[in-house]
């Protein structure tokens, strides 16, 4: 369901729905490749409900946000202004970015943190057509042996992991489903 006014489409009960969405995000980030379902957000097109829930849960006036490519629509800007309040910036200054894999390129534009503060790096919310536990093989913290996730490509994530402890963290969203790939995960 898409909403016509910027006032709709947020969490009905923000405290508890954000708590549940965060647990899904945390499980996803702690177990790379693990796919979670989040509900409660109905942002304007083209943003997926999962990406909307992630923004409602993690972003506010303290987190500069970059809307990449065609998802930077007036309707989405209005919705974000009302529900999230994040300042909209370019890729170099953002804490969070949202868009399709192609629209988010090049990855070199984003902050990967500093040696003293590797946490000061961007988190990219990547909208995918489909999300499945197949494709690239993953190994690293959070994964018992190996896991698999349908990543849009491999080379970019391998280059990202090579920068550890610096690097970008990724949240993949498709419909109401999401998965994550932190910088610590090795893509085989």
């Amino acid at each position, binding site marked *: 369901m898409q909403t016509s006014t910027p006032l709709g489409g947020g969490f009905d009960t923000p405290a508890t729905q954000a708590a549940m969405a*965060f647990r899904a*995000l*945390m499980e996803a*980030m702690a177990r790379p490749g693990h796919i979670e379902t989040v509900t409660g957000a109905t942002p304007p097109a083209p943003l997926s409900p999962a990406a909307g829930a992630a923004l409602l849960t*993690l972003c506010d006036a303290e987190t500069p946000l970059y809307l990449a490519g065609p998802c930077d629509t007036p309707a989405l800007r209005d919705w974000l202004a009302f529900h999230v309040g994040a300042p909209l910036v370019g890729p170099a200054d953002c804490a969070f970015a949202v868009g399709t894999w192609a629209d988010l390129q090049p990855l070199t534009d984003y902050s990967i943190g500093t040696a003293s503060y590797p946490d000061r790096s961007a988190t990219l919310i990547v909208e995918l057509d489909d999300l499945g536990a197949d494709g690239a093989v993953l190994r*690293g913290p*959070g994964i018992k042996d190996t896991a698999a996730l349908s990543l849009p490509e491999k080379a970019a994530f391998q280059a990202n992991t090579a920068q550890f402890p610096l690097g970008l963290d990724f949240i993949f969203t498709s419909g109401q489903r999401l998965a994550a790939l932190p910088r610590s995960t090795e893509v085989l």
Partner: protein
Amino acid sequence: MTDQPYNFAYLDEQTKRMIRRAILKGLAIPGYQVPFASREMPMPYGWGTGGVQVSAAVLTPSDRFKVIDQGADDTTNAVSIRNFFRRTAGIEVTTKTTDATVIQTRHRVPETALHAGQVLVYQVPIPEPLRFLEPRETETRKMHALEDYGLMHVKLYEDISRHGHIATAYAYPVKVEGRYVMDPSPIPKFDNPKVSDCPAIQLFGAGREQRIYALPPYTRVVSLDFEDHPFEASKADHPCGLCGAEDSYLDEVITDDAGGRMFVCSDTDFCETRQAAGHRGKDAA
């Protein structure tokens, strides 16, 4: 029953978002201490303000919450934190390790193996393992950035040269995934092996020091040691006086003023579960 004047789980939503962002970055960089804007909580520093803030950011209405203080469910700290979240979040509480979905702990890892889906929240007094070797935050931050951990090995070596063995018995430093040296909080070194390759998510909150760090499940955590002085998880060399367990961490309890003493499991749920199953130690009534 939820006390209505409070937001779910006490903290306001903006604070929770800030803590949640720190938790996600902590999970992405295992063992790295993420600074966060710690709030004042309705309890003194040293009573678990960091753990409480992490728990508040993590809890959902369907969670079952357990709090242990040095392994015990029934000490003042554990009882008051459990009641705090029962009142402000309206969630179920439990003392059973196997039933709990979120466990907040002060200075112990439960004896019962944790399973996937559980979250273990540690209360941390001093998150910086290098702090007593180098008091300046600017320097320790540089040491972590440069992976310069020689000082820690010198400290362990000095232990050996003075005492003949590594005398650090708790808050024993570990290295996470071959990168960051981390303080596992003041758990006895007996618990260190349980921190490694654990199926549960482990989160560490230090309120006064304003740091959050994390270990995703199945993270490799190695206690620092030397080839000729390997790490050894030690405990009092006795069975539990109440349940007879020989593989659990023990507290020494003084029973009179004539030298009488007994050793009992520090993990009360573990001990009670074993007693209910019919195990008896030599001091059991």
